[in-house]
């Protein structure tokens, strides 16, 4: 409906982020420079990269990129540089499959089973936040086969030509997924990505450390600004989740706002939050809250489901609570699996992705990570009954209909993304 958003304006004068190039040929030069310059081990490649980028230094104009959104579904072109693999191949026995993922976000048992069944060694590397992951993946020389990004970065990954299009012949198990994920707006026809998990972003707390029922507040998000919890709470070290929460608190459903007043308001409230409650900024809620480091935090639903396993033995799991708006009008997201072009074992990568989509395997993985896969067999209505999610955390179950009216974090235009990052930088520098 809304026209494809394109950014053509110049970055603000004195932009700290360096010049951006509009010119297409120059842009591909830059891209080549980026890939060659950082991944190429040879000095010659580095030098040629420098030759390419120097010219671009002077021309600071905008760049155009395609931004996918539910209103603007995108079917990405198939990469000519990284062709999909041939059908019908088997992974080489004894070969290595490199996976890049968040910590504690994939069951070790599942990986071990796959290793035994397919005679492939899995090497897992982990990251802490999406920005860090993107930075390392872009260097290209880490040779990751599978990467688990969030959906708002898939566009960037495709446009930087870092992904290998999927050969869908290898992945018949997609039939197990919720049907809406077979043609998602961020990657029409799932040419590059397969969904891994669905999760919401809400508030978690422990009734033995927080006496009030946070979810019963008129505006539960206010709790993060309540001075009585100073030094006793944490918010997610993920700028989009944290900043989206600030917007939602103010009733702004467009968590991808480019409106400068909204952005200014968001900055002020974020800094106010920091000064009023001195939050810890981390993504280790699933461990920190159960171990008693704090009793209240912004939380991903999967971490809430997982938290009971990290509780000390003498604490009852009944103390854990999770709040998410029951009408689903909060942050609901999904993470993906993609095959990286830089990987050396794309065949094993395809087999592994298919393996993870198997109903039994993904149920086992869910049991360990707490993050719900969008599998038909795992009906949201019966997750509590079947013992996947404890009763007191039933609100952490992601309902399929959440996706009808939930708030989605989208890839931002570059200039806005820079603004968000600068606010986050200011927030994290401390006052």
């Amino acid at each position: 409906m809304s026209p494809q958003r394109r950014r053509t304006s110049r970055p603000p004068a004195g932009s700290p982020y360096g010049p951006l190039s509009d010119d297409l040929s120059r842009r591909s030069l830059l891209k080549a420079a980026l890939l060659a310059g950082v991944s190429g081990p040879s000095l010659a490649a580095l030098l040629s990269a420098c030759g390419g980028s120097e010219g671009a230094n002077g021309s600071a104009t905008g760049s155009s990129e395609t931004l996918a959104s539910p209103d603007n579904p995108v079917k990405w072109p198939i990469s000519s540089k990284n062709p999909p693999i041939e059908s019908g191949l088997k992974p080489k026995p004894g070969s290595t499959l490199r996976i890049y993922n968040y910590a504690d976000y994939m069951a070790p048992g599942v990986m071990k089973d796959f290793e035994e069944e397919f005679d492939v060694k899995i090497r897992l590397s982990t990251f802490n936040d999406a920005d860090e992951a993107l930075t390392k993946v872009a260097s290209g020389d880490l040779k990751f086969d599978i990467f688990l990004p969030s959906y708002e970065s898939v566009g960037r990954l495709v446009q930087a030509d870092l992904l290998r299009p999927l050969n869908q012949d290898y992945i018949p198990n997609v039939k197990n997924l919720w049907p809406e994920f077979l043609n998602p707006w961020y990657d029409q026809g799932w040419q590059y990505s397969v969904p891994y998990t669905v999760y919401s972003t809400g508030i978690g707390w422990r009734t033995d450390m927080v006496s009030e029922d946070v979810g019963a507040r008129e505006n539960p998000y206010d709790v993060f600004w309540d001075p009585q919890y100073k030094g006793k709470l944490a918010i997610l070290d993920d700028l989009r989740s944290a900043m989206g929460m600030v917007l939602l608190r103010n009733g702004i459903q467009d968590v991808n706002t480019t409106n400068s007043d909204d952005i200014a308001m968001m900055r002020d409230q974020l800094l106010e939050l920091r000064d009023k409650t001195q939050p810890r900024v981390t993504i280790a809620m699933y461990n920190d809250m159960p171990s008693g480091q704090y009793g209240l935090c912004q939380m991903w639903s999967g971490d809430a489901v997982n938290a009971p396993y990290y509780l000390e033995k003498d604490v009852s799991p009944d103390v854990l609570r999770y709040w998410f708006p029951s009408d689903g009008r909060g942050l609901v997201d999904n993470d993906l699996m993609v095959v990286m072009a830089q990987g050396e074992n794309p065949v094993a990568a395809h087999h592994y992705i298919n393996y993870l989509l198997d109903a039994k395997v993904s149920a086992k993985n869910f049991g360990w990570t707490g993050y719900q896969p969008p599998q038909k067999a795992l009906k949201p209505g019966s997750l509590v009954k079947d013992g996947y999610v404890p009763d007191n955390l039933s609100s952490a179950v992601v309902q399929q209909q959440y996706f009808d009216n939930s708030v989605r974090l989208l890839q931002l235009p570059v200039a806005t993304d820079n603004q968000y990052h600068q606010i986050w930088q200011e927030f994290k520098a401390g006052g």
Partner: protein
Amino acid sequence: MADRAKAPATRWLWPLLALPGTAWMAVFFVAPMYVVFAILFGAVDPILRQPIPVWNPFSWDVSQFGFVLEHITGADGFFGPALMRTVGYVAVASVLCLLIAYPVAYYTARFAGRWRGLLLAALIAPFWISYMMRMLAWVNLLQTDGLVNRTLSVGGLFDVHPSWLSGRPSTVVLGLVYGYVPYMILPLFAGLDRIPAATLEAARDLGASRFETFRRVTWPLSRQAVVVSVLVTTLPMLGDYFTNDLLSGSPETSMVGNLINNSVLTPGQTGQAGAFVVLILLVSIVPMVIYVRAGRSGADVKS
């Protein structure tokens, strides 16, 4: 005549001996530093906003450096507090380290007697355990119902439940002191151990009290070791970020190391990390110069 005959051999010998060190410096300091500059003054790719190093100094772009400098002071100076905090924390931690390390090193060097070997081993023991592990151990001890609070409340007798890990400067300083004090003890011990016993005996023979001996002989002779040990602990503290990450994790205790860590990992901000690195380098060159001068005057005294 003999001198002239020797000259050609020594003329090449000394530079040759310096070669490995020079090569080491070139490969592991000068070259990486140049890369830092190339990124700091370089460009950013438009899609993933990764840094693109610019190797030619004539086309360097100073906007990222300017951005950092602009935001250190003034109304928009949101980096300023973190930099001041770093100086404050590191200063306090260094003084505390010295207060702890000096007596320990002094005792070990002068009075430990036959326990000396054992004591030295005990002092080195913390090095056997990874720094990260030692910090994680503190997280366990300091959490709300951890051992420290349980001890303070004497098993529930008093209700003392400070939340140590919630962004307290004192906890961060404690972490720094605990983490770096072994690095201070060793050079101090080496320095104190080198003071000849005869000098001290001479001072006592000439009528100085124990305290006077310390004040007029031991302390001046150990001053250089103090400078060295303060430097070897202070400089790494300046770049430390994980002590802070593990023991606080709150922006309210962010140090310059955290600023570097955050910006390195943020698309489009990598160059700013280079700016902080350069700032730290400039700041740490000052004590280095003091140290070198102290070393020179020490050499003068000896000769």
